[in-house]
């Protein structure tokens, strides 16, 4: 399985193509937090078309991993 590491001083994520399911998926592994997420073709297409404003919202630490009242991450 080919794997690429996309890393900066802010984050390190391993990216690979997963073929274990009925169709191909992109496997993302947050190498610092250990979290794994799969993205299918439609989700990737949605990301490609995601307006910058929405991406900015996702980058808000309180938008997910570090939101008040949530235990994940």
């Amino acid at each position, binding site marked *: 399985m080919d794997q690429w590491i996309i890393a900066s001083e*802010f984050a390190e994520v391993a990216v690979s193509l997963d073929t274990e399911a009925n169709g191909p998926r992109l496997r993302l592994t947050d190498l610092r937090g250990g979290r794994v997420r799969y993205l299918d073709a439609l989700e990737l297409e949605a990301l490609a078309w995601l307006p910058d404003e929405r991406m900015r919202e996702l*980058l*808000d*630490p309180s938008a997910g991993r570090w*939101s*008040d009242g949530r235990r994940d991450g």
Partner: protein
Amino acid sequence: MTVQYSELIQPERVHGSLYTDPSIFAEELDRIWYRTWVCVGHASEVARPGDYVRKKVAAQDVIMTRSTDGEISLLLNRCAHRGNLVCEDERGNSGSFRCPYHGWTYRNTGEMLGYPYNQGYGGKGKLSLGLGRVPRVDTYQGFVFASFAADGPSLKEHLGAAAGELDRLARLSPEGEVELTAGWLKHRAKANWKLLVENETDGYHPQFVHGSVFSVTGSHIGNLYSDKSTAVTRDLGGGHSENDLRPEFRRMGTPMTWFGTSEAKVPEYVAKMRELHGKQAEEILIEGAPHVMVFPNLFVAEISVFMIQPTAVDETVQNVTAVQLKGAPEMNRRLLSQCVGSVGPAGMLLADDSEMYERNQRGMAARMPEWLDIRRGVGRERVDENGFRVGAANDETGMRGFWSHYRSLMEREDAR
């Protein structure tokens, strides 16, 4: 105590305290480095959206970024929360930056994107904070300049005649663009920054300081600064100065002599330039690159670019890289090797100069004589057809121009 610059800076001499007094250095930061236009880097260092590099304007840690819309920003590397450094790496690609201390996150334009556990601040978007931005950023021939003053002369006004020298550098590229992509070397010198600036267009020292290099390499450079040379030193105004070697190169009349080579060594480049420029190619290939000191910190020495960064009254870092000409790979290999040979870690030119900077600083610890002499060539200066003061190749015309402009900045009533 207020410093009387008119007493310390006289037409033919300058006082030693200008290089050694910490209070003068502190005033220089306010009145020059955090006010006038200072060269920070080059647009080619952040060629793609998300690219960033860390830079310095004197003591200010600055992040140069390129956003998705292509705009270059200069951000202060200081989190708006607790003042932590936001970026640690010297370069990278990231559209946003997250402070490692508490996770505050910013777009690479400085805009705040958010902070963890936002209920502690009353929710999302409750803080009107962001990374500090250098108030004015502008570019010329890809060179990126910063001014910490919200208003003042434009970059074009600041550059004045020095802009033409940057044009002359860019026209050596078949695509008309310089690139500074070879990486930077940082040379730390225990010397005041002005000693470096003055030395850059001092044509009096090469035959002494660099004599051994010229003799082993058979270089003709020393002759360009002899008393018989037709080259000139020019005060370009605004504190800028140049050693204009073109009269000598025109006299020799051979393409690529400025580069210490012949056209047979770079045939593809020469052919491409002739195809592009026709008859004018000969002028470009004969006259070559400029040797210009752009006030206060950008020095183009034909094949190398220097950005001078003061760190203390007696310490300066010289950031050095090779000129790279877009669309000229044949030239770029040679430019890089010549640059490394002259100003690299084991380079033969900058090592000589650095020794002189540091000896200079140490020498000035002696109490007498109190002054440094800058009168060389006063009696034989003339004004050229463009109104610029011109001296012989080894005269101190450039230094006098530097000090005149320095004094005007340091004496400004509204400087604080």
